[in-house]
């Protein structure tokens, strides 16, 4: 019997084979996509009861379990949203097949990247996830989509290559202590022996892993691929790019940090993460002001939020780490909700420019107010998880490094103000005329396919912030302690 984590990885991949092989007739592929994602979510929830510890190349611990569950959930809601917007994307048969198959390949790779214990397997998983994403971003084949995919490909290709070099160096550091073979790349084994490894090689490995996976996580100054990739791909892809891929990459950086941090004389990883995080927050906060394209705006907001999380993890300690984990999870839920709402609005209004989407709350109340709440959540308003995590982070910074409050507070405020302006432009005021893209939301149920996921995510983000079940909260706290 295959271990549960591997079933979670291989089920989407089997689904991908089926989606690539079956004739794309009617709504069959979209429904199969939803079914596979739903079973994946069931498996990910079942994993919550799985005993912790490593098992061959995978490990299940308090750090990756919440991310697996949230990834599977976002995967399912994205599949649902995708079913409703598919017709308006106007893919031909080949592209529709490639799109659905790439989506499930990506989901399997995402689960593997999160659950991997072996750093080599993690690298392969993130590489597969990248290739699948490139394929999805390029799916439209327009010059703008091709350019976005090409830039994504080249930058992340180099990033991934550097991460592999870092992985090799990690093994080179551990090899004299651990000896040859699989344990030399196992996260648990590496962490246990890190103290006795060569500190210099570990530091060098961390630099490569940080730059390599940091590119994938969209940290400034390695972020250039992200806004274009999220704005030019098919609508549902923005949700998984922002909500899932960035998390997996940042978690890979954190795994590397945990290994290197166990060595007393190695490079202190915290200041690097804090520096990149703060830079991301500041650059993104000011970039948010100049956006005319709604999806680029929220892509920049993802850079800001990944920066906040990286800053929290760089600060370290159980409280800041917990804030970082809650922030990443909350961001996944809220940002994918916002991308669903913006995507739906773009198909209804026939444009994704902010100027063309106005007064959504008046013309489509359920969607408009969902989007408004989502944007408010991104700006750090209660009652959502991002408010809780930002509040805890700010409290922690004020207590430990008060002088860092100034740049961090500035970034948070400028970003929040920019998002409030976007909220006013997109949701309030007189509505702009509807020019629906042909085929948009023609499934029975219409807009409910987008509105349902949006409100579900918002509700869960609020629960995560203020009413998390005791067991889940304990899991998050334990995950924060793993990072040390």
């Amino acid at each position: 019997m295959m271990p549960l984590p591997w079933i979670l990885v291989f089920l989407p991949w089997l689904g991908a084979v089926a989606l690539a092989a079956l004739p794309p007739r009617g709504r069959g592929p979209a429904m199969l996509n939803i079914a596979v994602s739903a079973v994946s979510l069931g498996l990910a929830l079942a994993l919550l009861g799985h005993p912790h510890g490593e098992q061959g190349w995978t490990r299940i611990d308090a750090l990756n379990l919440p991310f697996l569950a949230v990834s599977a959930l976002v995967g399912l809601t994205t599949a649902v949203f995708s079913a409703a917007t598919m017709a308006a994307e106007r893919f031909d048969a080949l592209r529709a097949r490639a799109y659905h198959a790439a989506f499930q390949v990506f989901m399997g790779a995402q689960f593997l990247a999160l659950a991997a214990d072996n750093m080599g397997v993690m690298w392969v998983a993130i590489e597969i996830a990248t290739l699948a994403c490139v394929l999805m971003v390029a799916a439209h084949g327009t010059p703008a989509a091709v350019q976005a995919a090409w830039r994504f490909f080249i930058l992340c290709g180099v990033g991934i290559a550097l991460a592999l070099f870092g992985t090799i160096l990690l093994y080179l550091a551990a090899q004299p202590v651990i000896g040859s073979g699989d344990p030399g790349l196992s996260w648990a084994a590496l962490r246990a022996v890190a103290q006795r490894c060569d500190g210099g090689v570990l530091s060098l490995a961390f630099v490569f892993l940080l730059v390599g996976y940091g590119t994938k996580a969209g940290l400034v100054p390695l972020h250039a691929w992200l806004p274009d990739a999220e704005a030019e791909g098919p609508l549902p892809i923005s949700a998984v790019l922002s909500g899932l891929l960035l998390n997996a990459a940042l978690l890979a950086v954190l795994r590397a940090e945990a290994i290197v941090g166990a060595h007393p004389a190695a490079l202190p990883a915290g200041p690097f993460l804090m520096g990149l995080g703060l830079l991301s927050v500041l650059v993104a906060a000011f970039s948010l002001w100049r956006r005319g394209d709604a999806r680029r705006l929220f892509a920049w907001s993802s850079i800001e939020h990944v920066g906040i999380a990286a800053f929290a993890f760089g600060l370290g300690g159980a409280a800041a780490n917990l804030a970082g984990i809650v922030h990443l999870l909350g961001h996944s839920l809220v940002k994918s909700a916002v991308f669903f709402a913006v995507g739906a609005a773009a198909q209804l209004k026939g444009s994704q420019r902010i100027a063309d989407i106005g007064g959504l709350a008046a013309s489509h109340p359920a969607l408009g107010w969902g989007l408004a709440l989502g944007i408010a959540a991104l700006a750090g308003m209660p009652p959502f998880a991002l408010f809780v995590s930002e509040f805890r982070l700010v409290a922690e910074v004020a207590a430990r490094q008060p002088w860092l409050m100034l740049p961090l507070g500035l970034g948070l405020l400028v970003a929040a103000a920019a998002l409030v302006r976007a909220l006013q432009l997109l949701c309030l005021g007189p509505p702009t005329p509807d020019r629906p893209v042909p085929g948009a939301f023609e499934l029975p149920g219409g807009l409910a396919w987008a509105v349902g996921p949006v409100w579900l995510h918002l509700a869960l983000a609020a629960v995560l912030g203020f009413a998390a079940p005791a067991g889940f909260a304990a899991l998050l706290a334990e995950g924060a302690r793993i990072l040390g």
Partner: protein
Amino acid sequence: MRVNSFGTPAYDVAHLLGGGVLLMSFLLLYQRRIGGVINAFAVQGALLAAAAAWQGWVQGAPGLYVTAAIAFAAKAVLIPIALRVLVGRLGQHRAVETALGVGASLLAAILLVGLSVMVVLPVTAGSATPLARVDMTIALSVVLLGMLAMITRRNAISQVVGLLSLENGLILGAVGVVGMPLVVELSTAALVLVLAVVAGVVVFQIRERLDTLDTSILDRHGGEA
């Protein structure tokens, strides 16, 4: 075990092959014609395959022969042929446009090799074997030179060749570390990545969305609106 120190065949041959791979990275930088770039890349692939096979023999690791065979088939034969066919079909644009002069590129390359020597050798002085140290130095140099080639070239095919050569450096590093687990899997996965890049370029060309593969043309589309 004194197999892996200076003056033994194991060390010297590995050093020679690694040096050859690095030399090809320099050749990539100063070729002015796209055909020359592809040739230099093909030779680099063959040298990499030889280096992997040699490491397989020295370390007694049969898996590395697989890596060597895959590297030879893909990088010395198939990818160069595919790129040549592609260039032939494109017809024009055979000369490589550079964003940085050849002299400046070579100077930067020498500085990068110096940088990797200064980074890797002191850091690995404590633990690693001499063979692994030299190997990692050369590997990092090849990686950095690959990045340099990607930065200084504006033509998509030369950029792809830069990425391919960067990936050669990674494989060189991976095969040089004794007992590296999953080396065959990792090198194959890395190869899949670059094959996908090549396939991407081929698809772009066939779809004729782009008149030329000069990537500066691409910058007219998209971007911030």
